[in-house]
Structures are given as structure tokens and as C-alpha cells.
């Protein structure tokens, strides 16, 4: 198990390195001189040269990359061009808002999705199964930004059940502010996970070992919840791990629609102003988040499935 974890960690570092390097090169390929955009059209050439040097943009690109990694290894992500604040501070200030949004979304969508899927699989082809299927498919088909706008209109503007914008202060207020964005992002996942669990469950329920468990008189409840669900859940764990990437991008929509602070909003704002250090810092953290979540999914899978531990 420890061996598996170490190998998985090594792989994660490699993925992180490749992703960050590619992003570093890509942002420099975006048209428009960052210095001109930041300083505006009326800046003097001296001022421009000064900022270019300060940002290290006068160096060849491979040297910029080396400097970036050198600073990174010392835990330094650079400083914000405008405010002069440490990028690390800014990114970590925004990170909790995105994290709580993503976790809230996964939590409610996975629990509901697994419950719906397991129920549908236990009663296949009944009316309830068909209704679940119809609901699931419509949930999957609803894009997060549409759901976000509709939820905002209906629940915040008309019904005024939940606050429309911001992230709130204090535990309960923050929770209150989370409901609508988490609902918007998680909704399509409910349907997706429900369909996945149903299919996976039906497959597992047909396997011989389930028949064995039943032939030993083990209670049906335990057969479904332990003997079958524990296996059926494995692909769901993987999908949620990979799904973190999609959730990060849907979080951008939610953060914009609900005017929430967060990583997504930070990235969008800093790309429009060509604020390279902030872009790189946010991208690095998002990539790390994604890499960690897929690794975590693999680890959870290995914990749940002994066969995965011995496989490469």
C-alpha cells in the first residue's frame, strides 16, 4: 500500500511539472505585450523597459522558466504586478472559497447521485427507475451556467430564499451563500453519477459473488450495501477524481454569476490584465488541486479494492 502511494505521488509530481510548464509557455503565446496592456498606451519607453526588466520578460524564455521554477522551489510564486503583494498570499486567500464550493458540490451531488443510482439498480425497470432515469438525463443535459442563472433568478431574485451574490461571513452565512452556486455546479453531476452507479450496480449485482452471498442467507440489505455497492462505487470514485477538473471550470461560471471570490474569478481577471505571476500562481494551484484529487481517487480506489493495489 505504501509502495503504491509512493509511486502514485511520483507520477503526480511529473504530471504537475508537465502541466505547469505547458501553461507557462502557453500564456506567453497569448497575443498582446503584457507591459503595454498593463501600463496603457501613453506609457513612456523608459517605464516600459523598467517594467519589462522587473517582470523578467527581457530574458530568453527558457531562462524565465528556470527562474520561475527556481523561485517555486523556494515557495515563491512572485509578486502581483499591481499591488506588489505576494502571489502566494493572494492565491491562498481565494483558494478556500473555491475549495468549499467544489466540496459542497461534490458532497451533495455524489450522495444524491449514489442513492438514486443504487435505488434504481435495486428496482430495475420499475416506474421509479424510469422516473429516476428521466430526471438523471435532464440533469446531465443542463449546463452549469444556465442552471446558475436560472437558480439566481428563481431562488434569489423572485423567491429570495438565498442570497444572490458574495461568499458571506461566518460559518452559517457562508453555508447560506454556498447553496445556490453548489446547486448549480452539482446538478449535472447528480444525473451523471446516478446513471453511472445504476449501470455499475446492475453489473455487479449480476456477478456470481452476489449470488454466493445470497445463497448464504446474508440479508439483502447487506448484500446490496456492502457486497455490491462497495464494488460498484469504484468507477464513481475515479470519475469524481477526474471530475475535479470539470468542477474547477464550472466553478469559474458560478463565481462570475454569483460574484463570489475564488480561484476561477482570479484567473479570469488576471488573464485579461496579463498579470502573469497571478495567472501562473492560480494555474499552478488549480493543477495541483486536480492532480491531488485524481491521486486521491486512485488511493481511495486502492483502499477499497485490494486488486488495484497489486496492479501497476
Amino acid at each position, binding site marked *: 500500500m505504501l509502495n503504491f502511494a509512493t509511486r502514485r505521488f511520483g507520477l503526480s509530481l511529473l504530471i504537475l511539472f508537465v502541466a505547469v510548464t505547458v501553461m507557462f509557455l502557453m500564456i506567453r503565446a497569448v497575443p498582446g505585450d503584457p507591459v503595454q496592456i498593463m501600463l496603457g498606451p501613453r506609457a513612456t519607453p523608459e517605464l516600459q523597459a523598467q517594467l519589462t526588466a522587473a517582470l523578467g520578460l527581457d530574458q530568453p524564455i527558457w531562462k524565465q522558466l528556470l527562474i520561475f521554477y527556481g523561485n517555486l522551489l523556494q515557495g515563491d510564486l512572485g509578486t502581483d504586478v499591481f499591488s506588489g503583494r505576494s502571489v502566494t498570499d493572494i492565491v491562498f486567500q481565494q483558494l478556500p472559497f473555491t475549495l468549499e464550493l467544489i466540496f459542497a458540490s461534490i458532497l451533495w451531488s455524489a450522495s444524491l447521485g449514489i442513492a438514486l443510482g443504487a435505488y434504481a439498480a435495486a428496482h430495475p425497470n420499475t416506474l421509479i427507475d424510469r422516473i429516476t432515469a428521466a430526471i438523471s438525463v435532464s440533469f446531465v443535459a443542463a449546463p452549469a451556467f444556465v442552471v446558475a442563472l436560472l437558480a439566481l433568478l428563481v431562488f434569489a431574485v423572485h423567491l429570495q430564499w438565498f442570497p444572490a451574490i458574495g461568499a458571506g461571513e461566518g460559518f452559517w452565512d457562508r453555508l447560506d451563500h454556498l447553496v445556490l452556486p453548489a446547486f448549480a455546479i452539482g446538478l449535472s453531476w447528480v444525473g451523471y453519477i446516478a446513471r453511472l452507479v445504476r449501470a455499475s450496480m446492475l453489473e455487479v449485482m449480476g456477478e456470481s459473488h452476489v449470488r*454466493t452471498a445470497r445463497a*448464504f442467507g446474508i440479508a439483502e440489505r447487506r448484500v446490496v450495501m456492502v457486497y455490491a455497492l462497495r464494488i460498484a462505487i469504484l468507477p464513481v470514485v475515479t470519475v469524481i477524481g477526474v471530475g475535479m477538473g470539470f468542477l474547477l471550470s464550472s466553478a469559474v461560471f458560478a463565481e462570475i454569476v454569483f460574484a463570489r471570490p475564488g480561484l476561477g474569478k482570479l484567473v479570469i481577471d488576471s488573464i485579461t490584465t496579463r498579470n502573469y505571476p497571478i495567472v501562473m500562481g492560480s494555474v499552478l494551484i488549480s493543477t495541483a488541486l486536480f492532480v491531488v484529487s485524481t491521486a486521491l481517487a486512485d488511493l481511495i480506489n486502492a483502499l*477499497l479494492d485490494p486488486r488495484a493495489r497489486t496492479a501497476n
Partner: protein
Amino acid sequence: MTDTLLEIDHLSVDYETGRGDLKALRDITFDVNKGEIVGIVGESGCGKSTLISSILRLTAPNTRFREGEIRFKGQDLLQSSERHMRDLRGADISIVFQDPMQTHNPVLTIGQQMLDIQHRSKQSKADKLAHAAKMLGAVGIPDPEARLKQYPHEFSGGMRQRIAIAMALMSEPDLLIADEPTTALDATLEVQIIERLQELQREFHCAILFISHHLGVIAELCDRVVVMYAGAVVESGEVREIFHNPKHPYTRRLIECDPGHIKERARVLPTIPGEVPDLANLPGGCIFRDRCDQAMARCATQVPPLDQLKKGHHAACWLNHEEVTT
């Protein structure tokens, strides 16, 4: 005195399908006595698996019990409550399934699974684990305490089947159903498993309903044998009697086709030509007629009854009736 443990009494089972009702079992009748080993032999699709799942009542949702009874210790299982069935499963009636590679839950340790099946016992967890280890030892798994902590994929196929047998015998059942327990294993392992079953049967005194298409194994292990063809019993009797004096052409052909029986090197292996009739659309008369080289005019019109030829030997073939009349 022989006590009857299991009586299959004129059992008919259908599967409802899109093509109409599939008559999987028709008028099956035979008994299993206490402590006796009864073999069921037949080709794939002859209804062996339907029979087993009917006894445990673990049937597919489209199964319909049309007629007959399955009496276990005198009680009709087809009329029993689901609760009563669950009380029997894994307690009075246990089963060893065909494929040892698929029969255990892959994500739970063998110890956990052996704990779970003792759900009726009031013993402490430590006592249950000790019991599990003792059973693993009894089927010849070395170092059983340590192996309880392992997962199914860490055992070989032969070991997994022995574990399945250990699990089935753990509750000291009155009836053990063995559904082709050696089919998925190679020949040397097969012998080991059969010998182990014989030893354990002597120790636990349970009756065994042994399903196989391997006649050699049946001859070695069983007291009596039931020959099934296309969902019906065609012949039944003492093993010695059936093998030395078969009274149904199908049984004769089965024995001829058994690899263990073939003594001379043949260019073409003997087979029974033709196919099993369509169970959804059964022809009239004898079901074996189309594949039988001794078929007569009568076979096409009348179904031969399963008649007693001598004490304990039944066969369903018109040939035996001609012998009587001439």
C-alpha cells in the same frame, strides 16, 4: 432406515421470455436421502442450474413455477416465505458454485466473508474467526489464521474452490449442493477436490447433490445418479446400475462419449449428433427422438413415461416397454 431429505416432486418450471414460455424443467421427480450423494448429469442447457436455483429459490425474476413441489424435510419450499428460505440458505442447505474465480467477493477478505456467513451464530467475533480458520484447515489450506486476512485474488483457483467448500460446510448443512465444482479446475485439482469432498462428507454426514457433466467424477463419488436431458429426467438409479446397465439411449451415448471411457485411439471422437430441442417450442413425443438411432414410430407421438424397471431404476424410453411385451 433411510430418511428422505429432499423430494423433488413433479416439478415443472418455465421462463417467461419474448419468444414465449421456455419450459426449462418438466415433471422432474427424484429424492435425496439423508447422508446420500446423488449426482445429476446432463449436457449444458439440460436444466441443471434451473433446478439448483429453484431449490434455493434464487431464481431470475422471469421464472414461473408451474407445477409440483420441492419438499425439504417435508416442507414445500415453493410455498415457504422468503424469510424461511433465507433461514435455510447457508444453514440447512449450502451450495458450492461452479466458478471458483468468481464466487468470492473481490474486495472483502476471506476472513470477513467467512465471518459474514456466520451471521446466525451468537458467538464472539474471535470464536467465529477461529471456526473459520479451523474450516480452512479442514479443507487443507495451510496457515489458515494468516490467510484469513487475505483477499480472494491472492489464492489459486483450486484453493478458492476449497475455501468455497469450507464456507459451505461451515454451518454443517444437511444438504450440500455442488454445482459443477470441478469443471473450472484442471484434472489433478479435480481429483483432489473430489477426494476432499468424500472425506468431508464422511465427517459431516451431509447429503450432497452433485451436479456434473463429467461421468467419471459421478461414478467415483455418487451413490445414485439422475440423468437429465432437455429439462426432463430420462433415467435415474444406482450408479453401478446406470453405468453397467443403462436403459435409455441417451445415457448409453453419454457413457460412450465420456473421454474416460474411450479406450482406443479414435480418429473421430464420439459425439451425439443433433441438437437439444427448442425448449420454447417442444416437439411432441420423446424429446430425444431426433438424436436417437433407435427411434420408432411410437416415439414421435407418445411421450415415454419415467417407469420403474426394477427397484430404484427408472427410465423413460419405449424400448424398455417393447422388451416387456415381447
